[in-house]
C-alpha cells in the first residue's frame, strides 16, 4: 500500500516535471524579452503555436515520403525553429520596434493585437478543428524496463529541456552576445555607449525566445497528439504565469517558476481533481505575488546609483 502511494507520488512528480519543462521553454521567451525591453510579448504563445503547425505540416509531408521517425522529428523541429524564429524576428520589427519610444501601453496593445492577428491568420489559413499530431518521439527499446515510471516521450522532453537550459546558460554567461544581452537589459544607453548595436541584441533575443518556444511546441504537440490555433493562448498564459511566478526578467526564475507551476498542476490533478488544476496554479500565483511581489527570484529595481 505504502509503496503504491510512493509510486503514485513519483509518477505525479515526473508528470509535473514534464509539464514544467515545457512551460519553462515558453516562459524563457517571455522573461528574456521582458528583461531586455520591458515588454510582455503577448504574441509569444502564438509563436509557439506556429511552431507546432509548421512541424505538423513538415511531418505530414515527410511521412508521406516515407522518412523514418527520428529524421522526421529532427527535420520537423528544424523547420519549426526556422519558421518560429523568422516570425519572432519579424514580429519585433513590425509591431514593437516602431513603438520603442512610445508610452508603455502602446507596445502592449500592439502585442495583444498581434496575438489576435496570428491566431486568426492560422485559423483562416489552416482550420479551426483540432488536428491530430503524429507521435514524433520514438519509444526507446532500452528504456522499456523503466517505461512504467516515465515514458520515453516524457524522458525526451525533460532531457531536451535540460540540454537547452545548459546551452542557454553558457550563451548568456560566457559569450560576447550573452554579455551584450545582459548589459542591454541593465542599461540600454550605456550599452550603446560601449558600442553595442541594441537593435541587433533585441532581434537576437526575440529569435532565441521564439526558437525555444518552437522546440516546446513540437515536443508538447507530439506528446499530447493534438493541436489547434488556440493552443498558443493557453500555453502562453501558463508560461507567462510561470515567468511572473519566478520573477519576470530573471532566467533561472522562469525555470523555477515553470517547475513549481508544473508540479502544482500535476499534484492538484492527481490528489484533488483535474478540474482544479488551474485553480491551484493561479491561487499559487496570487499567493506568491502577495508575499513576494517581484516573484521568487525577481529583484525590485532598487539599485545603487
Amino acid at each position, binding site marked *: 500500500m505504502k509503496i503504491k502511494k510512493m509510486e503514485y507520488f513519483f509518477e505525479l512528480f515526473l508528470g509535473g516535471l514534464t509539464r514544467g519543462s515545457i512551460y519553462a521553454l515558453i516562459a524563457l521567451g517571455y522573461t528574456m524579452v521582458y528583461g531586455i525591453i520591458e515588454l510582455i510579448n503577448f504574441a509569444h504563445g502564438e509563436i509557439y503555436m506556429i511552431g507546432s503547425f509548421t512541424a505538423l505540416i513538415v511531418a505530414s509531408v515527410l511521412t508521406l515520403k516515407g522518412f523514418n521517425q527520428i529524421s522526421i522529428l529532427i527535420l520537423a523541429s528544424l523547420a519549426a525553429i526556422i519558421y518560429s524564429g523568422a516570425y519572432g524576428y519579424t514580429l519585433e520589427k513590425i509591431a514593437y520596434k516602431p513603438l520603442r519610444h512610445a508610452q508603455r501601453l502602446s507596445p502592449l496593445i500592439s502585442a495583444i493585437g498581434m496575438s489576435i492577428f496570428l491566431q486568426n491568420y492560422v485559423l483562416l489559413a489552416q482550420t479551426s478543428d483540432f488536428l491530430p499530431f503524429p507521435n514524433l518521439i520514438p519509444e526507446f527499446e532500452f528504456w522499456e524496463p523503466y517505461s512504467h515510471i516515465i515514458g520515453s516521450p516524457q524522458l525526451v522532453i525533460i532531457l531536451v529541456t535540460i540540454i537547452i537550459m545548459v546551452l542557454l546558460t553558457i550563451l548568456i554567461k560566457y559569450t*560576447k552576445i550573452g*554579455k*551584450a544581452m*545582459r*548589459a542591454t537589459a*541593465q*542599461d540600454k*544607453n*550605456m*550599452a*550603446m*555607449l*560601449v*558600442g*553595442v*548595436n*541594441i537593435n541587433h541584441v533585441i532581434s537576437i533575443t526575440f529569435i532565441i525566445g521564439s526558437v525555444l518556444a518552437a522546440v516546446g511546441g513540437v515536443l508538447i504537440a507530439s506528446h499530447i497528439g493534438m493541436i489547434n490555433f488556440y493552443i498558443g493562448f493557453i500555453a502562453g498564459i501558463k508560461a507567462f504565469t510561470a515567468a511572473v511566478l519566478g520573477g519576470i526578467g530573471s532566467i533561472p526564475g522562469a525555470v523555477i517558476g515553470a517547475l513549481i507551476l508544473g508540479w502544482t498542476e500535476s499534484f492538484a490533478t492527481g490528489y484533488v481533481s483535474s478540474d482544479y488544476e488551474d485553480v491551484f496554479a493561479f491561487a499559487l500565483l496570487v499567493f506568491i505575488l502577495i508575499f513576494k511581489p517581484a516573484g521568487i527570484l525577481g529583484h525590485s529595481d532598487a*539599485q*545603487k*546609483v
Partner: protein
Amino acid sequence: MLNLSNVNTFYGNIHALKDVNIEISQGEIITLIGSNGAGKTTILMSISGIVPPRSGEIFFMGKSINSISPDKIVALGISQVPEGRRIFPYLTVIENLDMGAFLRKDKDRIKKDMEYIFDLFPIISKRRNQLGGTLSGGEQQMLAISRALMARPLILLLDEPSLGLAPLIVKQIFDIIKKINIENKTTIFLVEQNANLALKTAHRGYVIENGCITISDTADNLLRNEAVKKAYIGL
C-alpha cells in the same frame, strides 16, 4: 579632431543646445564648464549620437558623424564616461571591462590593456570578480573610466567625473586623467561643475550658459577671468 559647428539639439520642443561651436585638437585636454541644466551633458550625448543634433554638423577626423548610430561612433574612437558612472550593476568588474572592449577583436591586446588598467587602478584588480553595483562611488568612477579606456579611444568624453566623490579620490582620478592624456596621447573632453579643478587640469576651456557657449579661452585665462571666477569658482 572633433568639431562642433552650429549644433542645435532639442529634447522634444526644448531647445537644449543653441548654435554650439567647439573645436578640439588632437592631444588636448579641453574642459566645458557650466551650471546644472546648461547643456553640458547634452553636448556629450549629441557627440555620442544618443541625442543627435537637429541641425549643424559634428565632425570627427574631418568626417561628419551626425547621422551615425552610437555603436559606430564608438567604433570610430569616441568613448564616453557618462554622468553617474552607469556601471552595469549586475555584471562583474571584469565583465564591465569586457563590455568596454566590445567592438575589439584583438584578444591578446585586450588582455594587455586589462593589465594596464589594473596597474592604473590597483583597487579595480582587487574587485575584479565583484558585481559592479557593489563597488563604492569612487571605485565605480575608476571602473567607468577603465571601461571607456578598454575601447582604446582616440578621444575620451568625461561627464562630471568628480561628482559626489571625496576630494582625495577626485585628486587621484584627475591625476590619472592627466596621465592618460600624456602617456597614451588620448584627447580628453572634460565636462565639469568643479571649474577650479577642471581649469587647472585642462589646456583650454569653454563656458556654457543656457545652451549657448559664452566664453572660450585658454584655461589660465579663464581661471583669471572675473566673470568666470564669480560665477563658477566662487572667489
